């Protein structure tokens, strides 16, 4: 009975961990147990009161044990049942048990440690939590390498999108300006980097300079694109930003044959019918190719550091660089939020008219929200361009804007932790779990299911319809619909949003009462 209760109490994270083990197998249980155990230890302090480290360790221990049991069972299932089912050799019972116990042990250990830290007195508790988190993030690449899980490339992608989601959270979450074309700024950051540090235009500046230029260019673009939207609100603003999001990739796609002539002289040339009079400014001998169209810019220069050398195929330096960018973004955005400017954003979001009557300059405040949001996507774009070393216009289309917006909304509008969580969930599901699920499912179908089905039509139907990759957008939409019904304020909402969406609106009650008394 007790064990059942234990398992149920850790059902959400336990199920995530078990799914991970089932899909990835091997030492992945140990890594995910370590990560989720740490998270669980922290979360136990949110639901239960932890007075001192000892009770914390007890609570964390039970929570970690619940998670560990999930991992252990999943390890055994995976090693002994799932592997042969999907046509791969089964592993011996002992090995599967070892994998499972490693997961269990690390889950308990990390949960105990983290929960015990939550029992410390206040400043020490915060510091210990931060240090643990920093430790986890810093040694993750090594853990990933030792466990051979191969997650690090996806984690780098997650972090790129984390910067984007944090940036989008500024206009959307803080200032209440719905921006549906945020990928445009990502594209501008990436293309600025591409143009300034590749052989394409013959400008090969250092990445460490270019990343700042990219952020600045994106910020300026944010102001330019934000200016026409100033008088607009709500739906109208969203439509205009949507338009910008569509325009920018098309512009990059088409800036391939630029020839600019000085307008007055060219007008004169047409009038006098003497084309040689036109003064050519750009692209005179042959049309100037700025963005290289659909083929994009490739290769783009990579950053280099004194000791590390040029960043290459090893993911380690990239991981630490993008981690640094994420931490930097969070730090800066936190400062923006808790400031005079952050309050002005919140006031604009709450009531633009009253804010303006209270002395807030609507124009500069809104433009700064757009510009600051764009700045961080500029950083993300610069990193992305250097990391992938090739950029194409099609990478920055509308769906990217939508996915980033979904991260912000899913996690919790206006709350950085929530936004990060939303980003991790969507990106991990999309880039890590779904492809692997497709692979495992295909293995199972090919070895265990399809050979037993005689009808070729049915066989065809099963192979095409049971492909998670094909169902990607469907699943995504399904999650969003459920989310909006069950928890519209997001996973970790800001206190303000929660209040907005869940407390009865006094005004609504008043009017209802009025109607009743009148009737």
């Amino acid at each position, binding site marked *: 009975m007790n064990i059942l209760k234990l398992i149920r109490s850790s059902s959400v994270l336990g199920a995530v961990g078990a799914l991970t083990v089932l899909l990835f197998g091997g030492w992945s249980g140990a890594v995910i147990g370590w990560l989720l155990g740490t998270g669980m230890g922290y979360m136990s302090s949110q639901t239960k009161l932890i007075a001192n480290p000892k009770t914390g360790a007890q609570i964390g221990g039970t929570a970690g044990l619940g998670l560990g049991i999930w991992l252990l069972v999943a390890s055994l299932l995976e090693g002994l049942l799932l592997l042969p089912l999907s046509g791969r050799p089964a592993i011996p019972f002992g090995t599967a048990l070892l994998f499972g116990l490693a997961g269990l042990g690390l889950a308990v250990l990390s949960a105990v440690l983290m929960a015990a830290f939550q029992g410390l007195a206040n400043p020490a508790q915060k510091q210990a939590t931060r240090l643990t988190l920093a430790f986890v993030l810093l040694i993750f690449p090594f853990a990933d390498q030792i466990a051979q899980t191969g997650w690090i490339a996806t984690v780098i992608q997650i972090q790129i999108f984390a910067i984007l989601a944090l940036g989008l959270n500024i206009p959307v979450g803080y200032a209440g300006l719905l921006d549906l074309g945020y990928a445009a700024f990502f594209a501008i950051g990436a293309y600025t980097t591409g143009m300034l540090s590749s052989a394409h235009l013959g400008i090969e500046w250092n990445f460490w300079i270019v990343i700042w230029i990219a952020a600045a260019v994106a910020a300026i673009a944010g102001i330019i694109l934000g200016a026409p939207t100033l008088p607009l609100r709500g739906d109208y603003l969203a439509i205009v930003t949507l338009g910008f999001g569509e325009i920018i990739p098309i512009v990059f796609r088409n800036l391939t044959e630029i020839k600019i002539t000085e307008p007055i002289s060219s007008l004169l040339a047409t009038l006098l019918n003497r084309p040689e009079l036109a003064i050519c400014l750009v692209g005179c001998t042959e049309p100037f190719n700025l963005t290289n169209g659909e083929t994009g810019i490739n290769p783009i220069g990579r950053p280099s550091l004194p000791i590390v050398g040029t960043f290459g195929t090893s993911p380690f330096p990239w991981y630490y660089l993008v981690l640094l960018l994420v931490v930097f973004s969070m730090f800066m955005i936190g*400062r923006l939020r808790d400031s005079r400017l952050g309050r002005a954003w919140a006031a604009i979001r709450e009531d633009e008219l009253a804010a303006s009557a*209270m002395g807030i300059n609507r124009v500069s405040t809104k433009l700064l929200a757009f510009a600051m949001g764009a700045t961080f996507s500029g950083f993300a774009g610069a990193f992305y361009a250097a990391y992938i070393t090739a950029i194409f216009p099609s990478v920055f289309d509308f769906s990217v804007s939508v996915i980033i917006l979904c991260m912000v909304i899913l996690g919790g509008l206006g709350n950085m932790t929530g936004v990060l969580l939303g980003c991790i969930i969507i990106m991990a599901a999309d880039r890590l779990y779904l492809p692997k699920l497709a692979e495992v499912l295909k293995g199972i179908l090919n070895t265990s299911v399809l050979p037993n089905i005689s009808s070729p039509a049915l066989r065809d139907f099963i192979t095409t319809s049971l492909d998670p990759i094909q169902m990607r957008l469907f699943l995504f939409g399904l999650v969003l619909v459920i989310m909006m019904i069950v928890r519209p304020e997001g996973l970790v909402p800001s206190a303000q949003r929660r*209040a907005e969406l869940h407390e009865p609106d006094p005004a609504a009650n008043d009017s209802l009462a009025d109607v009743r008394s009148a009737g």
Partner: protein
Amino acid sequence: MSLLEARQLTMRFGGLVAVNAVDLTLEPGMIASLIGPNGAGKTTFFNMLSGLYVPSSGQLFFEDREITGTEPHQLTRYGIVRTFQNIRLFGNMTVLENVLVGRHCRMQTGLLGTLLRPPKVMAEEAAARRAAFSLLDYVGLGTERAQESAKNLPYGDQRRLEIARALASNPKVLLLDEPTAGMNPNETADLTRFIYRIRDELDLTVMLIEHDMKVVMDISDRVSVMEYGIKIAQGTPDEVRANPRVIEAYLGKDEDSPAVESPAPEPLNGRVESLKDTSTEG
């Protein structure tokens, strides 16, 4: 010298003339009231004074400087600040944050200061907080509820908070749009005393739109009366009370239910009676 002056101020919405060539001056330190039946154009007039509407014609002067068409946030910086008829607090922000937003225009921190947080910025922020706390105390809200959401305050306290938010910008002129709407007699009396107090202690000039005739007659140094967008009378409370045009414009007709449209014409005597009632009460 006049502090705030409106000359021939007019506001048209399409064919409707909401405010028609109104002249009005505010001298420093006075408490002036603007009264009139519903739809007389009082709030429209306030909206022009506070910059939310740009007048169709006419001019506005503040400390002998023309301010016609100035943006509302700029007017707040000059020292004209207002409250709203239907309270417009930032409901999901805390009480403290609401007051700090009011302080916004008296703070200097720019983008760079926000990001780098030099000691000067931190000092400014701390000073703003201290000022906000003392203002909360001053308006009688106390500091214990500073971290509560503004919308969770009781109605009367929301009115106080709105005034605190307005005062945070160190105004010279405070425009109050129906400050006692929805208050019970006790709260109304409190607020009346409070308006006196801030006028005297903070060197304010106060102008209010008010439907409660008792408040108007008690508090005002001067009363202006509007009807159909036109200023029909102006003077001390006693002068206005005796003015036949004002009596004709059914002054005080809606003291009981300010939200209801003007009732069907009733005998003049009845209106004068109700006017006398209110004046003797106070």
